[in-house]
């Protein structure tokens, strides 16, 4: 279904409009009231995010609706992703409030940039032509570059921002080059029209497809385009990392799925092998490189690379079986990612230093049992141990692969899972088994209630997340 009348189109993009207006209002408040409005702007932005999230799932749409000459598509698949994206972004923003104040870099720009990045992600998940892809990706990325370099006084943060920017710009260029190739060879930027031509696409179109996929893969940090991830994760302020690791990942995977399923649906044989190779590489690089890490943020960076590999497995399963498994897996990944970073943020030594190395977590179970239990639940969940949420995500992915009959991907997935289980277990060992180190004995202070609360709230979600299944099933049926 496609709507021509512009005034009838607007109601479909209420979530995006909410976010943009929210960002503008937040800028104004920040500009006039200055630093002291920091908290108010943050709370306002969180409310805007939640409102946009609820607005996007308020109506379930039976048939996908094309807007603005087919450049955006509104369907349940995207709406569900938008809901999760706004929920995790709100969570990540909540985590940032105290952290930035502690480091004395609290400015109202932070929530504004977050809102703008989320607008970009909304455009990404709804993109239905090549221009919309580029617009969404760039809007999101530009905001994220600034968030990475947000701690201006810190060398590492500036370095992270610069690295992210240079490599991100390169990948955007690749994406744009791919888009121009596709346009040059097919004469259209619209997904539907590309799809009708892609069944017997010539080599130029395929090249374009590969370039666009590489650009998106960079944004979702799938191997072999993952190099920037550990450095940026480590250098950025931790709340920014929490944000990078969750919402943009979800947006990028959904975008890749849409690009493969909708623009190149008939050319499935062409992209399926590329996605499979990226999936296997990401799973194993993520699993093996994480073994050597002692910094939690770097470790979580590799863990997110591995998880993107699992998500790619669901995409490789094809448009019929993949989407619902993908939504389920990525939503669970994003939700538990925010929770895991909340745990990391909730700990610091009493003299205010942040805790980033794994050995310094030794024995936190003595002093902060609730935090330790929450952390343990997240770790067992990403490991994929039932009855926690991560298990259901992996179970759905394995099921989707069986349907698409790519058994080798399922076997690669479980082998990578066992390797990753080792380093997650090592963290659990540090938290529970090791004796507290002298310098930290009693020196670990939990921070504010809001951060601790976020950690525990998301941990409590873990056993009940099977409920998502029905929603993802409905939302994932779009491509059948």
């Amino acid at each position, binding site marked *: 279904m496609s709507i021509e009348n512009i005034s009838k189109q607007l109601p479909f993009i209420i979530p995006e409009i909410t976010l943009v207006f929210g960002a503008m209002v937040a800028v104004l408040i920040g500009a006039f009231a200055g630093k002291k409005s920091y908290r108010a702007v943050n709370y306002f932005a969180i409310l805007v995010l939640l409102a946009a999230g609820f607005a996007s799932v308020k109506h379930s749409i039976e048939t996908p609706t094309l807007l603005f000459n087919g450049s955006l598509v509104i369907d349940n698949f995207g709406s569900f992703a938008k809901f999760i994206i706004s929920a995790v972004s709100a969570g990540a923003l909540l985590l940032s409030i105290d952290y930035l104040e502690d480091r004395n870099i609290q400015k109202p720009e932070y929530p504004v940039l977050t809102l703008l990045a989320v607008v970009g992600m909304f455009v990404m998940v709804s993109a239905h032509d090549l221009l919309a892809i580029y617009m969404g990706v760039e809007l999101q990325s530009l905001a994220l570059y600034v968030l990475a370099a947000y701690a201006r006084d810190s060398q590492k943060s500036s370095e992270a921002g610069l690295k992210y920017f240079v490599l991100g710009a390169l990948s955007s260029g690749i994406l744009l080059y791919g888009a121009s190739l596709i346009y040059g060879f097919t004469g259209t930027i619209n997904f539907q029209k590309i799809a009708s031509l892609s069944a017997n696409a010539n080599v130029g179109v395929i090249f374009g497809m590969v370039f666009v996929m590489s650009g998106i893969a960079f944004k979702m940090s799938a191997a072999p385009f993952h190099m920037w991830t550990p450095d940026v994760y480590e250098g950025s302020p931790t709340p920014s990392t929490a944000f990078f690791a969750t919402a943009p990942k979800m947006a990028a995977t959904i975008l890749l799925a849409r690009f493969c399923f909708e623009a190149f649906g008939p050319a499935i044989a062409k992209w399926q092998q590329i996605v499979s190779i990226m999936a296997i590489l990401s799973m194993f690089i993520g699993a093996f490189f994480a073994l050597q890490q002692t910094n939690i943020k770097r470790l979580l960076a590799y863990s997110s690379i591995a998880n993107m590999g699992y998500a790619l497995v669901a995409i490789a399963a094809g448009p019929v079986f993949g989407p619902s498994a993908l939504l389920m897996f990525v939503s669970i990944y994003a939700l538990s990612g925010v929770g895991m970073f909340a745990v990391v943020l909730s700990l610091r030594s009493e003299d205010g230093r942040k805790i980033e190395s794994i050995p310094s977590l030794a024995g936190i179970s003595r002093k902060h*049992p609730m935090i330790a239990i929450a952390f343990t639940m997240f770790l*067992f969940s990403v490991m994929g*141990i*039932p*009855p926690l949420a991560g*298990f*259901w995500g*992996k*179970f759905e992915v*394995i*099921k989707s692969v*069986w*349907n698409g009959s790519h*058994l080798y991907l*399922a*076997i690669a997935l*479980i082998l990578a*899972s*066992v390797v990753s*289980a*080792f380093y997650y*277990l090592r963290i*659990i*060992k540090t938290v*529970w*088994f090791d004796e507290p180190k002298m310098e930290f004995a009693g020196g670990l202070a939990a921070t504010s209630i809001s951060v601790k609360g976020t950690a525990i709230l998301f941990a409590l979600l873990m056993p009940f997340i*099977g*409920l998502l*299944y*029905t929603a993802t*099933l409905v939302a994932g049926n779009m491509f059948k």
Partner: protein
Amino acid sequence: MFGLPMLSTILWLPTIGAILILLISGLNKDAQKAAASARIIALITTFVTFLISVKLVMDFDHTSAAMQFKESIPWYGNINYALGVDGISVLFVLLTTFLMPLCVIASWKSVEKRVVEYFVAFLVLETVMLGVFSATDMVFFYVLFEAGLIPMYLIIGIWGGKNRFYAAYKFFLYTLLGSLFMLIAVAYMVLKAGTSDILALQAFHFTKDAQIYLWLAFFASFAVKMPMWPVHTWLPDAHVEAPTAGSVILAGILLKMGGYGFIRFSLPMFPLASLHFQPLIFTMSVIAVIYTSLVAFRQTDIKKLIAYSSVAHMGFVTLGIFAFNGAGLQGAMFQMLSHGFIASALFLCVGVIYDRMHTREIASYGGLVNRMPIYAAVFMLFTLGNVGLPGTSGFVGEVLTMQGTFLQSRIFAIFAASGVILSAAYMLTLYRKTVFGPLVNPKLADIQDMDLREFLVFLPLIIGTVLLGFKPQLILDFTNVSVMHLVDNLQTMMK
């Protein structure tokens, strides 16, 4: 039971106890008092759970092979929270609830650090184990089967011995790899059959090729759990490092999940593949019986010796299961339950002297009979039970499984029988070295005999072992109808 579904009550009562312990310790600032209340709550909940499961067994109709006490609630997609017991599972439920209070009493004094967390982990583990034996939905079964890794990892890792990290990792990663292969098979079966109900899946016919791959995937998981040679190497490490009660749970219940899995899944769901792989299983079992017995003979650590003897005894179980006849299966069931008593008691025996001397080296003991006559008598009984002396429960299981094996293959039965002799050799040597002889080690000079609390732990096990030795019908009557039903189905499916 007061309008509550009985199986769910049994299943969740321990978890409720765990939550209660957490709440009380949260309110109670005094660590000593919190620990004391944790012990008492754990004892009460496990004991009440045991009483309810006794009622369950008494209400159980053992003339029917059907699932009884069925419950089913839609849970997730087409997966149900479905419970039920038949003749095969009901006694495992009873065994679990029977051993748990004993574990609580056995850890009463020996666990001193983090008492609250210890009992919480144990009670959660009880729920998980009971769920494994009473689930009638395959995915629900899988969830619990793997969820047991979490509390067990923590129990070994926090309260274990010196080398506990290594043992905990090894236990976790070994079993995880095995179960993940099973997960792939589970996903396939759910998709193919469109249901995850175990009874429906048992009636579903997979093609022979599919059966072979599925059988192998399930085998990867159950063989590790069981454990069968050559994937048994995690067990001695885990046993040695685990605290006494942890070893009891491992040997008494967790190992039985593998055998239970074979009987519940591999045999009825993939009968053709089971027949196809019978020689493989027989070979592996016989190697397990002979090889691990020889290995046990060379051990210097008491717990390691008993752990290897467990592997050998599990070899009889797999022989019996894959004999596909009534005697073999009945024997396997009996052997698993009897091993639940005897191996648990042996680990408790080690615990008694370990609590006093803090060493498990055989060489540092000797002449215990002089100072500990009651202990020597109790240890003697279970040593003989482990050897399979007539009059103890160990005898019945071994005879039945060997009878079943003999009907299938004489040569394997003969090899397996030699394992009985070997088990007498290593068990009696162990007994002689630790209990008899002069008191050489000066540290043993003022060792005390068992006190009343310790004796009370052993009393039910002694009664059980002897009673089942003289009256095996107590168990066989329960399992008979279900086992025969299974055998009949197998015979018809194999034709």
